């Protein structure tokens, strides 16, 4: 039975956000008998309610509260009020996500040592190593049912994958397969296996793809130690004279302000909202916002170096059938500066339906050059580039000087400029992907610009030293010991891999740490 806690109960852990980080942390703590309240800004939609329709699903799940943008990234021009494509709903972006679950490579935890100082990049080594993370990666993979681990077979390849694989073979790439996906390839965990429906980004109506919505959250609720409070938008974190946090002020479903008392607060609102909340919690004692003595809250915003390449063939492909991210090439994920950039990138198949293809293929374009591409929609194959981007202090989330949301909270501005390394990497990837599709006989290819960010990272970075970052290796604020960050904003650097497996692994690890500290009564 799901718990229900009193607003004045100051023994609970309050988690803000129910996505990959928050949902996992909530369940892990509940399993250990810790009482948890998750405040979630969005509504609760179960997986039967999901909609196999791109715009319909977007209205149902996406975070559409206004944000502003600045910087030289193309998103700022094409989607000035939609810097990120993420979710406001119970389950967070794990409802929308594709399921690609990769471990960060050893050297990517040590970028400053490996790549050296790079002008205009705020590189730093993580305070943890791959060796320390490995046991948690293993737990996360087991929890999420990641294919290609634990004897679970990989998914069968769809048409889009087969085109990718044929091109990879022609180019001599060695590591190409259907990925490590948090999608059931066999029935497990009381959920069925993938039916190749092809609407992974719209929420999996079969529940085959892992989402905290129908795994972590109900499991946590079943312990009687977890309450998820939907339509509860956190606005400010309060603290006492000693600087310890004491509760969270939130707007409830009727827009009324409430305060939930707390023993511990964990922020997991994704990398735009988490720093926004910390900045908005500024007080006389913490004039620059909570946990911000380093000045790093909101800085080092990363979104991965992305882009897509779509290609048209003289025969049909039907790329939209089956899993959206149906396969991967990992050969370019290595660090090899001879290519003209540090770090690496992955190629992963991607498909958009016709409505999103029209919106994202070349935003703002019109005329026959554009429309003849869509005319051959069913002859298209496509892939997505996901590579390591450089953390930069100027790429940051700030509170808007005068615009406020419905609850009077300043909206977030997202500033992003590409680092020359990002641009060099993207151009390399465009060239390779074009060659790949040409090798299979593409008649036309489209280097497609980045979409609004689906991966948002780094804005409350982890660091060894308090002056370099916001949280320590457990995601605990350097400045406030009962305040934690539990989402992708902890990432010190971005790595080439899709981030969620690491977010989940960190949350499992953090739960162990919090529970131990609670028993030791240090927090």
């Amino acid at each position, binding site marked *: 039975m799901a718990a229900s806690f009193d607003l004045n109960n100051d023994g609970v852990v309050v988690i803000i956000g129910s996505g990959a980080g928050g949902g996992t942390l909530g369940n892990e703590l509940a399993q250990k008998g810790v009482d948890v309240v998750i405040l979630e800004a969005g509504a609760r939609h179960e997986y039967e309610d999901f909609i196999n329709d791109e715009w319909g699903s977007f209205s149902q799940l996406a975070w559409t509260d206004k944000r502003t943008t600045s910087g030289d990234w193309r998103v700022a021009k094409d989607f000035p009020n939609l810097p990120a494509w993420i979710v406001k709903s119970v389950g967070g972006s794990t409802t929308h996500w594709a399921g690609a679950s990769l471990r960060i490579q050893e050297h990517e935890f040590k970028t400053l040592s490996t790549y050296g100082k790079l002008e205009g990049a705020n590189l730093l080594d993580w305070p943890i190593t791959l060796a320390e993370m490995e046991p948690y990666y293993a737990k996360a993979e087991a929890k999420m049912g990641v294919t290609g681990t634990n004897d679970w077979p990989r998914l069968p390849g769809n048409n889009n994958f087969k085109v990718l694989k044929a091109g990879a073979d022609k180019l001599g790439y060695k590591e190409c397969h259907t990925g490590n996906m948090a999608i059931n390839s066999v029935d497990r965990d009381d959920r069925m296996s993938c039916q190749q429906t092809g609407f992974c980004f719209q929420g999996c109506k079969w529940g085959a793809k892992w989402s905290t919505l129908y795994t972590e959250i109900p499991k946590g609720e079943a312990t009687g130690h977890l309450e998820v409070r939907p339509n509860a938008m956190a606005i400010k974190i309060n603290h006492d004279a000693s600087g310890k946090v004491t509760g969270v002020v939130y707007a409830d479903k009727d827009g009324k302000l409430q305060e939930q008392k707390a023993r511990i607060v964990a922020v997991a609102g994704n990398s735009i909202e988490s720093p926004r909340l910390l900045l908005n919690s500024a007080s006389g004692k913490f004039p620059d916002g909570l946990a911000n003595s380093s000045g790093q809250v909101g800085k080092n915003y990363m979104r991965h170096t992305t882009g897509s390449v779509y290609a048209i063939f003289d025969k049909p492909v039907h790329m939209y059938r089956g899993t959206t991210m149906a396969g991967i090439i990992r050969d370019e994920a290595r660090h090899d500066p001879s290519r003209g950039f540090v770090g690496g990138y992955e190629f992963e198949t991607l498909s958009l339906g016709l409505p999103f293809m029209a919106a994202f293929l070349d935003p703002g374009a019109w005329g026959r050059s554009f429309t003849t591409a*869509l*005319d051959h929609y*069913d002859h298209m194959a496509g892939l997505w580039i996901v590579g390591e981007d450089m953390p930069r202090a100027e790429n940051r989330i700030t509170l808007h000087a005068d615009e406020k949301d419905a609850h009077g909270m300043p909206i977030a501005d997202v500033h992003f400029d590409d680092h020359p390394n990002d641009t060099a990497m993207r151009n390399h990837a465009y060239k390779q992907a074009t060659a790949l599709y040409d090798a299979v006989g593409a008649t036309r290819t489209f280097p497609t610009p980045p979409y609004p960010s689906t991966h948002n990272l780094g804005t409350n970075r982890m660091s060894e030293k308090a002056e370099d970052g916001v949280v320590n290796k457990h995601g605990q604020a350097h400045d406030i010991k009962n305040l934690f960050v539990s989402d992708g904003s902890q990432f010190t650097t971005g790595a080439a891999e899709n981030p969620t497996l690491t977010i989940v692994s960190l949350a499992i690890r953090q739960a162990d740490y919090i529970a131990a500290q609670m028993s030791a009564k240090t927090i």
Partner: protein
Amino acid sequence: MVTIYDAKPGLSRRELLKRGGIGALLVISGSAVISPEHAWGLETSALKPETMATLIQMARDIYPHDQVPDKYYAIAVKGHDEQAGKDAAYKTMIEDGIADLDKKSGDGGYRGLGWEDQRVGVLKQVETTPFFQAIRGGLVVGLYNQKEVWPIFGYEGESYSKGGYIARGFDDIEWL
């Protein structure tokens, strides 16, 4: 309110010629744009029907798909009539925008230009205006999010109710 309705057949060929067609495709009659050949009509309430006819042509010139019938372009732009009915400034922007296109197109107006390239040349002159951007922006969803046009592009849409593609060709590619 704008309504798309199936037009009553009945205008004789003579009458059609008298009223003047849009490239012989669309006909203005009263407050409506009519496609006699395809038996549908679009009634306007705020915008002039001539304006609506030009908008339909303009929509096709912005996102030309020769295999997509006019009807879907008409549905894609009809929202501008509704918006114009609610917002006088919006109405002015659309009417002025269309008048400007006509002016830039010479004697026969925008619809009088015979080649798509000529009309695109006119659109290029205004492509940064709020008017053009409102029309183009609206079309991205207005045109491509019509379920009825998806099959024309070979997009199959919703698949859950059919059990996904696991038994319906997710891996049926044969030419590789």
